[in-house]
């Protein structure tokens, strides 16, 4: 590197408004990725304390559902936030994962761990089948195709009674065993969900800073421009969609083996819509957004239990307020505050 002439005034005295060369270099994607992974490590260390803090199995299981929801919302954020496509079938893939793994274990005696892998791959494969025709077209065709697919899956879940148990649900799904160790209680299963979701966050970070991730972000910006740069927009979108579906399939399989029961209404189209809202609420296209989305998605329905029938109403109203006043989502709140503080400081200096 060429030696840089020293600035007359240190950066700190300029209020950080003049970005130095060194600072610009720090924004290179791999550095950003390393920083994100460090934060994930830190956060997951903190999350590891949850079993100590949680007083009972109910609170502990909320932690597990948080990790499962994080898989769902994190995957969806890749397609929606970074890829600019709207998928209305995340709950469908979630259900597909739950039923594939659940049915394989209950009806065919397949070991749960193998079932989880098959469910993950199966969800990705079905995403390939929908994505191949829908993603060739520009615009919101994916939204329409996925909307239809979720409806079809919902019908299958409740009508294939001999396999899925129909509206009564699929019961007696065996727990996952790891090396002869049965993960049948919350305090054991917690660690599986903890590890898998942490791994997904790390993978997402690596993916986003990779060549493929940058291509995806460019495609979201403009398909024409990214195409003229030599990126294949179709392949980028398809890969992101498949990754997102795989996350949902994995989440579904984990859900089924933890809950040991699955019923069709969990995976309805309404859940898909809620998941889209959670992506927006957490922060559209922000790496940390899904963490907030998953907290809201897990905790708020529990907190609103006492409103009973009015639960959905309160939920909906709260969401409208947040989206109106926080268009960049909860994850964007920090940046928003920073910008506000900077403005305040600037105006104080001016006066």
């Amino acid at each position, binding site marked *: 590197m060429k030696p840089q002439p020293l600035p007359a005034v240190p950066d700190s005295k300029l209020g950080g408004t003049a970005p130095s060369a060194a600072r*610009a270099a720090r924004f290179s994607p791999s550095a950003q990725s390393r920083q994100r992974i460090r934060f994930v490590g830190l956060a997951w260390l903190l999350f590891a304390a949850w079993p100590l803090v949680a007083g009972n199995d109910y609170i502990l299981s909320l932690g597990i559902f948080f990790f499962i929801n994080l898989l769902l919302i994190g995957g969806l954020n890749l397609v929606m936030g970074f890829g600019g496509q709207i998928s209305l079938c995340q709950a469908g893939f979630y259900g597909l994962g739950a039923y594939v793994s659940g049915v394989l274990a209950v009806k065919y005696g397949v070991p749960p761990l193998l079932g989880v892998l098959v469910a993950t791959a199966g969800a990705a494969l079905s995403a390939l089948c929908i994505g191949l025709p829908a993603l060739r077209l520009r615009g919101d065709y994916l939204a329409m195709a996925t909307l239809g697919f979720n409806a079809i899956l919902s019908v299958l879940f409740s009508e294939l009674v001999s396999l899925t148990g129909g509206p009564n649900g699929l019961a007696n799904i065996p727990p996952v065993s790891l090396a002869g160790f049965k993960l049948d209680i919350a305090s054991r299963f917690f660690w599986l969900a903890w590890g898998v979701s942490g791994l997904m966050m790390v993978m997402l970070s690596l993916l986003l800073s990779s060549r493929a991730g940058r291509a995806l*972000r460019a495609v979201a910006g403009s398909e024409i421009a990214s195409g*003229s*740069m030599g990126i294949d927009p179709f392949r980028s979108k398809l890969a992101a969609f498949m990754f997102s579906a795989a996350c949902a399939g994995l989440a579904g399989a984990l859900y089924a083996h933890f809950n040991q029961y699955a019923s069709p209404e969990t995976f309805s189209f309404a859940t898909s819509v809620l998941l889209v809202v959670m992506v927006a609420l957490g922060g559209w296209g922000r790496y940390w957004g899904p963490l907030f989305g998953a907290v809201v998605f897990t905790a708020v329905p529990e907190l609103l239990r006492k409103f009973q029938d009015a639960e959905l109403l309160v939920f909906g109203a709260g969401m409208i307020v947040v989206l109106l006043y926080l268009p960049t989502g909860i994850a964007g709140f920090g940046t928003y505050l920073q910008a506000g503080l900077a403005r305040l400081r600037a105006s104080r200096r001016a006066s």
Partner: protein
Amino acid sequence: MLELASLQAGYGASNVLHGLSLSVNQGAFCTLIGANGAGKSTTMKAIAGLLRPVQGSIEFEGQRIDHLPAAQIVTRGIALVPEGRRVFGPMTVRENLQMGAFTKLYPRSTAGNRQVETRLEFVLETFPRLRERLPQQAATLSGGEQQMLAIGRALMSAPRLLLLDEPSMGLAPLIVLQVFAVLRQLQRSGLTVLVSEQNASVALAHADHGYVIESGRIVLADSAARLHDNDKVREAYLGI
């Protein structure tokens, strides 16, 4: 250098180009002028490989490229500045520029990265304004700066032929002149330039050679100076 022969292309069942032929010589500064819907963008997209021609051929440096995917066309040395700039808004200016070298960008290959860095330096010398803006989000740039960025991004792939689709669109007249001055400077240093324009007066004032496109066909081809004095062109495109 570039040879389009009886090209037919369009979207789905509707053809936009009906047997368009034109040629661009090595080192030339050519312009393609025409009204809205005449087929300027379709021609540009077909050359860049974003649209597959139905019939006809496109040759670049003596080789047919009309059936190559866009990625390979970039590698062969053609870059397109798309209509309406289309910078990647949420990315920084630096990231936008790096994306322009996408076909050469391998994160772990130091040789590839060094190439990209050298090229970045060249682009920043061409557009000093972008250097100040490197860490900024592209969406925060002004229209003129975004056009500079879009051109800079296209230059990152080290093209020998630069295509620009209506670069004057939505820009202040003074900025348009700046853009064309930069294009002239690039052309003098050896780059071949083909610009499609609705703003015929600016385009004909700067280019060497011009084509007039009307409903998917070339209706006039001449030196820019003679086109500028042509009665038909004056009436239809210059409003004189």
